[in-house]
């Protein structure tokens, strides 16, 4: 085992800023990308729904 205590683990032998800075930013970026992907999907769905609705209205009009 490398670490005798949690505080030692978080201390990272004095390099906490660098190590945790790297891991934290990576985690934030990945979380951010996942959020962006979600919102992209929502936007695409909304756009598709609008398009389908619009084409239905047009179909109904032409049928009438």
């Amino acid at each position, binding site marked *: *085992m*490398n*670490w005798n205590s949690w505080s030692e*683990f978080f201390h*990272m*032998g*004095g*390099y906490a*800023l*660098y*190590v945790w*800075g*790297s*891991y934290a*930013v*990576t985690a934030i*970026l*990945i979380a951010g*990308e*996942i959020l*962006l*992907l979600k919102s*992209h*999907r929502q*936007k*695409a*769905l909304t*756009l*598709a*729904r609008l*398009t*389908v609705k619009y*084409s239905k209205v047009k179909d109904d009009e032409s049928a009438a």
Partner: protein
Amino acid sequence: MTNRLNLYKYSSPATFYALAGKMIPWFYGAAALLCIVGLYISFFLAPTDFQQSDAYRIIFIHVPASWMSMFIYIVMAVWAALGLAFNTRLSFMMASALAPTGAMLTFVSLWTGALWGKPTWGAWWVWDARLTSELILFFLYLGFMALQAAIDDPRRADRAGALIALVGVVNVPIIYFSVRWWNTLHQGASVSMTKAPSMAAIMLEGMLVMALAVWMYAIAASLSRVRSIILERERNSQWVAQLLETEI
């Protein structure tokens, strides 16, 4: 003959959309699992380096991110080439879907490289061949995305992006070679991250597991993005209308 038919079936956006939807959770799951194992190895099994102390633990994300950022660019170029050769829309969409994830990983590689450089070399940024190439790769990703964003017509955007991706991938080895040449000539940093003095097998294992995790994540993210792109592009088609109806 049946093979050929199957290939066509899966290259149709409608089929692929459904297939990708089923695969995404598995890839995210695999990524999470591998990430946990990888992090356990990198923080608890890999011993503290006697020279670099614990700062070296950054390489467990730096190296996988660098590997994957380069690999994704190549995969992107392959999709682009397939698109140009066989005129399959899905290939172009895959190429565009990969770019943001690739750019993000390139940025991770640069960021962690800087944070590793500070305690190791005493400077946030060193013009080391690896970091410089990574920076140029970042520019190539940005150029690809900026070009696609500037073109309104999807057909032209697909093809123009594909061409610049191919031009980029032909140039990458030349750029990498020239940067290394320049670096050795100017007697820059001669320390290489992967040649850490006591490169224990456990460290390599940690890096490999983390690389696999990043790989799985990249697949999941790009599949998820390509689904949104398909939906946007195909919103006028019959199958999207049907899909939305069953969904609601």
